[in-house]
């Protein structure tokens, strides 16, 4: 009975924290700007990449053509997601590290002295917002990109893996946002955290791919921010891939959760 009451009141307290974090996120302009920039960059790079392949189709050799024909949905979604996620890295960092630069973190921890619920609520609200925005962007990118490549290859949602890949963009982007949020909570400094997140998402997988042979393929896939997550945005037919799309997504989730766990432990232990 007592345990149930405590659990119930803890759930109610977490509900209040969730509402508060939603108010925080929607009451600063940087949130909407980050999402708008992400949408423009993602859809824009989808148009550029698909336009480039469609335009240079005749000058490609047969092997390249075959690869594009085997995974057209990856071609449509992956380039946009790669660049669009950079705006998301900034947003994720701002959600926590921004509180340290403004001093709001003291107020947050005074209001919720258990601390971990603050981080959990931030993560949940950010993931939900990015999921919704990501799905909208995913379908916009798909409609635009499939239209542009339709002269060369037909892509539709009823083909195997296509709907999963399109929905997958909305699932993949929150993992990036949460990775950035966790790094922001660990580093507690906006500029430092953005630098670190971009190093993880942009630089680390490229460096890992320089390792010779299979080691490079595995490392660049399995590294945090590596190519595992974006596998979900492909048809899953690439013979070079070391993981299936869902396995890739699981790796991306695992990194985000691991870094969030480190962030939560440090948040509890450190002086605010």
């Amino acid at each position, binding site marked *: 009975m007592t345990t149930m009451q405590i659990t119930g*009141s803890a759930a*109610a*307290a977490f509900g*209040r*924290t969730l*509402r*508060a*974090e939603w*108010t*925080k996120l929607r*009451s*600063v*302009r*940087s949130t909407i700007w980050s999402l708008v920039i992400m949408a423009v960059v993602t859809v824009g790079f989808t148009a550029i990449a698909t336009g480039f392949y469609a335009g240079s189709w005749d000058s490609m050799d047969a092997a390249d053509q075959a690869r594009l024909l085997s995974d057209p949905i990856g071609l449509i979604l992956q380039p946009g997601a790669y660049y669009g996620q950079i705006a998301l890295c900034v947003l994720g960092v701002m959600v926590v590290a*921004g*509180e340290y630069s*403004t*001093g*709001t973190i*003291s*107020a947050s*921890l*005074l*209001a*919720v*002295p*258990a601390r971990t619920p603050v981080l959990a609520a931030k993560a949940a609200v950010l993931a939900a917002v990015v999921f919704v925005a990501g799905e909208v962007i995913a379908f916009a990118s798909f409609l635009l990109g499939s239209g542009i490549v339709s002269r060369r290859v037909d892509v539709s949602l009823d083909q195997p893996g296509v709907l999963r890949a399109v929905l997958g963009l909305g699932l993949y982007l929150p993992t990036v946002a949460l990775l950035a949020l966790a790094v922001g909570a660990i580093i507690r400094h906006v500029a430092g955290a953005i630098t670190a997140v971009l190093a993880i998402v942009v630089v680390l997988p490229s460096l890992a791919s320089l390792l010779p042979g299979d080691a490079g393929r595995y490392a660049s896939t399995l590294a945090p921010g590596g190519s595992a997550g974006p596998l979900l945005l492909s048809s899953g037919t690439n013979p070079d891939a070391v993981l299936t799309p869902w396995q890739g997504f699981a790796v991306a989730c695992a990194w985000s959760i691991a870094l969030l766990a480190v962030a939560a432990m440090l948040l509890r*232990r450190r*002086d*605010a």
Partner: protein
Amino acid sequence: MVGTAAAAIGDRNDVDMTHAAPPSIEVDGLRKRYGRKVAVDDLSFTVRPGSVTGFLGPNGAGKSTTMRLILGLDHANAGTALIGGRPYRELRRPLCTVGALLEAKAVHKGRSAYHHLLWLAQTQGIGEGRVRQVIDQVGLADVAHRRTGGFSLGMGQRVGIAAALLGDPQVLLLDEPVNGLDPEGVLWIRNLLKDLAAQGRAVLVSSHLMNEMAVTADHLVVIGRGRLISDCSTGEFIRRYAAATVRVRTRDGRRLAELVVGDGGEISGEAEGAYIVSGLDADRIAELASPAGVVLHELSPQHGSLEAAFMELTRESVEYGGTAPDRSRA
């Protein structure tokens, strides 16, 4: 001066007896170090409801650190800080028990005062009506929906005060609330603190300005280098540390000097026909002068040396506290 401080600590029980209510804040043996620097060192004091307790010390004395330890933002290395008998972290809707103002303008520059107070209210399950109420109370109704980035320091302080009052708490901790405020703002804070105490709340307010605290606080806790120097009522502090003097003007300075010295006082010339008497109060000087036929044109008690007394008190702790800690009084 160390001996005087020991006397001040020794007298605490007498002072506490005048406050019968249970303490709202109990700090006991609190210690905090950052690296090798000890910021708060074996600090103990209590804050009672229904009064303003001034928390005094020079910059860097450990006032803010102590408040952060009380509020659970920083972790103490030793000792306890309890609010109504419980650590801050165990409070269920903490903002409804304790209101705190820590640093000016600790609000996201892009967020409005209204939204800042709204999210704070939501964490405690406080309704939106209360948000509007505190906005009106601190006089921000006209600018509540503007982004706080353009706020003056005084307006930022008002947002912080509104946040502290949001949960209608019985305990308030305010760190340097008058810093950077214009005279009108200082007066507003001073009256607000007194009103809150008059409503039966416990108010702990830190400052490095002795004179400001002398007119605001009922009780003074003075620290230097993280250690307790003095803990007594404001009146007691003034009596003990501010060498009371009386300014006297007369045409018969020579006769006045004889009378004062003859009664055990000291006198020094201040200007033509004006003198400063110490060791005797104004009543006694009048009683001496009148039968002797010495006409006094002015007889005014002076308290101007309070700030100097405070500086002297804390300078001692700064000079000797770190290198050769005097444990003989312990």
